[in-house]
């Protein structure tokens, strides 16, 4: 049996084996794969880097636990980046089942960096009607959130002393798996000229690239891929990156098999021509 025939008629179990290995090795042995970072992700990262100590950023954690897999890495890495630069955070959770999850995340990461609620960050929590809440916050955070998630009046929080509304935050970054982003676009960006970036789930992404072109969003992260890009930029490779590493290797393997098959195919054709 000629070599090219082997290439073409490869027992599919070899394919299965390679796919299995392609998933297992990167799963257990961490190693680096180059990740191409898209400009829309880099834009967000560069903006975050441009923030100075004491600046305030609004981080909207508007997703439910069911979108955790895709969006938690983004929220995590951004929060780390902000805290490491001593940027203060105003955090909302405008998705009904999100607040508890967001609270855990904040607790965990603020501990890592020894940040205190009310001093370094202010967790507003959840209120229904995101559209109205987002609009009202444009007037004053205290309209929808007279007190923070833990019930402390905003006015009594040192950090919120001279923070009234969107005018006092550098930008809003909405990490969301819901239509909250639409409200941020309309009631936040369009109405109050909020500088807005978003991190959405992979399936949602396609619908929001247009806003990127029209400049209503200054950056956009798409699902796990966006998260992994960001992890690479922020140089804290974590869950998203390891997931992407597996994906990359797997995709390379699939591609290679397609190539192998075609090499065999061409050789076969050449062989026929000769005979």
């Amino acid at each position, binding site marked *: 049996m000629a070599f090219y025939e082997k290439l073409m008629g490869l027992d599919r179990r070899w394919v299965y084996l390679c796919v299995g290995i392609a998933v297992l090795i990167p799963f257990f042995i961490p190693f680096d794969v180059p990740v191409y970072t898209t400009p829309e992700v880099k834009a967000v990262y560069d903006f975050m880097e441009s923030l100075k100590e004491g600046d305030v950023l609004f981080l909207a954690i508007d997703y439910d636990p069911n979108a955790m897999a895709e969006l938690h890495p983004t929220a995590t890495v951004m929060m780390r980046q902000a805290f490491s630069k001593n940027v203060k955070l105003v955090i909302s959770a405008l998705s009904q089942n999100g607040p508890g999850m967001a609270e855990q995340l904040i607790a965990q990461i603020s501990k890592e960096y020894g940040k205190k609620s009310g001093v370094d960050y202010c967790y507003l929590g959840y209120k229904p009607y995101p559209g109205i809440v987002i609009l009202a916050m444009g007037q004053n955070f205290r309209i929808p959130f007279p007190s923070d998630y833990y019930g402390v009046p905003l006015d009594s929080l040192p950090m919120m002393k001279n923070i009234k509304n969107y005018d006092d935050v550098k930008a809003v970054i909405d990490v969301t798996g819901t239509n909250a982003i639409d409200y941020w676009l309309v009631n936040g960006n369009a109405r109050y000229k909020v500088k807005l970036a978003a991190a959405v789930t992979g399936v949602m992404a396609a619908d929001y690239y247009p806003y990127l072109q029209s400049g209503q969003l200054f950056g956009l992260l798409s699902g796990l891929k966006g998260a992994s890009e960001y992890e690479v930029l922020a140089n804290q490779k974590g869950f998203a990156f390891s997931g992407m590493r597996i994906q990359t290797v797997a995709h390379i393997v699939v*591609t290679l098999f397609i190539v192998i098959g075609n090499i065999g195919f061409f050789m076969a054709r050449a062989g026929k021509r000769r005979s």
Partner: protein
Amino acid sequence: MRQQLPLAIILVIGVFMALQYFVPHESSEFVYEWSLDWVIIIGVFAMALGLWSMFVVHYTKIQKKSSGWGFSVIAILGLLYMLIAGGIWGIEEGTPFMDFFWYVYTPIQATMFALLAFYIASAAYRAFRVRTILSTILLVAALLLMFRLIPIGPLSGPIQELDRWILGVPNLAAKRAIIIGVGLGIVATAVKVVLGIERSYLGKD
């Protein structure tokens, strides 16, 4: 009686349900919701036929001691367990019934699903050959989309753009055309059934 009456029923109900779609009034809503219940209820009774058929298939295997009859025993035991456990303890979370669902059904179905990771690779390997123009187009489009996860240096940027375009333009056009065609096919078939032109599925004698 055996042939004509069923066809008449389909005609009457079919036309009625079709018109119902255009009537927002609540009495029409009521009919619609009720009809959905009919469908469910008929389905519930039919399940007995299904279980019986399944039982017969495996029972005959066991009876004939045909190859692998032992596995048929397992199938029947699995079935009986669920029926009995569900009957006795109910189907709430934490019941022996749901334990089987979570620790037997769920892992198996998730793993069956995961097999796709292997199959998609071998399918790609066998199918994507530059044999004809068509298979070449198929191949190129698939590769371009896969490349978005493969770092290929300076090319990565343009490829991301290209992928977005492919998804937004030719892919969209293809989907739309198929959906429109399917829509017409569905309506045509439904009309044939309602008018009784297509009746082969009803049986006759």
